[in-house]
């Protein structure tokens, strides 16, 4: 028998600190698989966010940098400009990319930096214990929206991918999901595309991934995937945005 599914080289053989059923674990593996498959591990530089994935560099077997909360794309911009031969990507949560980091996100995209962005939308601030994120759904309960997000008080969920798609500097945007194995495979394809674009010098590419946070959602792992399928997807429709 041949081993047809195995741990990629770009992913260290260590346990992660993520909660059971957390989407970060899946995406970490997908990124590592794509990097292995493209043969770019030795020239990749990843930027870990501040968020639950803060120590992603402890799991990935390639050069990495931390970035201050929200500033991953400023850091990545500089690294890529200094080392255009390297493959540079950021991995960011919704709070990181679309709240505190909105400015850096939009301007890196507007400059058309030749970067790859892996954007984990779990509709919540995981790391800090489940506060409202810009992507939190209307009605969703979090520790700062105790009676559910209310558009009057807390504003609307932010579809930053759609906004970014308007920018001429942006080459590729796709929204994908982790809610079942098929979607996970689509996610992997999108991630691959986003890296290939960078290799081909095509410009800014972003993959938004709807990802479960069972802990902050107060659901078990399977219920969390179903919640993506039944609710989150409605607000954040899947598919190619640009």
């Amino acid at each position, binding site marked *: 028998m041949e081993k047809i599914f195995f741990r990629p080289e770009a992913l260290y053989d260590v346990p992660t*600190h*993520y*909660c*059971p059923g957390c989407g970060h674990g899946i995406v970490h593996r997908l990124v590592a698989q794509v990097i292995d498959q493209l043969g770019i591990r030795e020239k990749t530089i990843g930027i870990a966010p501040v968020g*639950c994935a*803060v120590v992603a560099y402890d799991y990935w077997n390639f050069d990495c940098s931390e970035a201050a909360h929200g500033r991953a794309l400023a850091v990545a911009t500089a690294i890529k400009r200094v080392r255009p031969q390297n493959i540079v990507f950021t991995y960011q949560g919704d709070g990181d990319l679309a709240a505190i980091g909105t400015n850096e996100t939009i301007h890196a995209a507007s400059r058309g930096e030749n970067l790859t962005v892996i954007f984990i939308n779990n509709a919540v601030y995981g*790391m800090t*214990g489940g506060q409202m994120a810009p992507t939190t759904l209307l009605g969703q309960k979090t520790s700062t929206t105790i009676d559910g997000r209310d558009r009057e008080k807390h504003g609307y969920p932010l579809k930053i991918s759609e906004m970014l798609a308007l920018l001429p500097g942006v080459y590729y945007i796709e929204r994908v999901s982790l809610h079942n194995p098929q979607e996970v495979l689509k996610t992997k394809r999108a991630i691959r595309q986003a890296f290939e674009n960078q290799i081909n010098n095509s410009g800014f590419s972003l993959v938004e991934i709807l990802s479960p946070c069972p*802990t902050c959602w107060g659901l078990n792992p399977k219920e969390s995937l179903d919640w993506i399928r039944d609710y989150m997807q409605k607000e954040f429709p899947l598919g190619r945005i640009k």
Partner: protein
Amino acid sequence: MIERIIIAGSGGQGVMLLGKVLAQAAMRQGRFVTWFPAYGPEVRGGTSYCMVIISDWEIGSPYINKADTLIILNNPSLERFKGRVKDEGLLILNSSLAKAGANKRIKVLQFPFTDIALKLGNIKVANMAALGCYLGAKKIITIQEMLEVFRFMAPAGKTNILEVNEKALQEGAKLGDG
């Protein structure tokens, strides 16, 4: 009197609550008390714990290096904290999920609190069984005082939950006192 207690278990086992009701009861006695939780990413996945200090004098640090009592509800917590109890200290252990070997340094009370809770019909009250056991053993707070705290803290109208908590406490107390 100063009593330092570390309470540890997994996320869903209600160790924070255990610590809080204990602290509440001590407060109602007019004692000095501090409650200090594990917080932040520490809490992700693994073990969860809190530290309670009950004292007749002003309390300095709420952080406990060496405890008088450990209340441990699962195995990873046992691994993490077993060295953190004083000589001749007390270990209350949930034998449903963890086992401690023979130990001369400390006193060990191990009972299957999870199983007891399951028998009472709600796995979540294992913590209260352990609390009862602790109070039975150390008697710094009477079961009566603790029941008053339960009633005070219980969400209005949820009397059935209150009841099973009380039962668990009393079951535990019997074991601890035994």
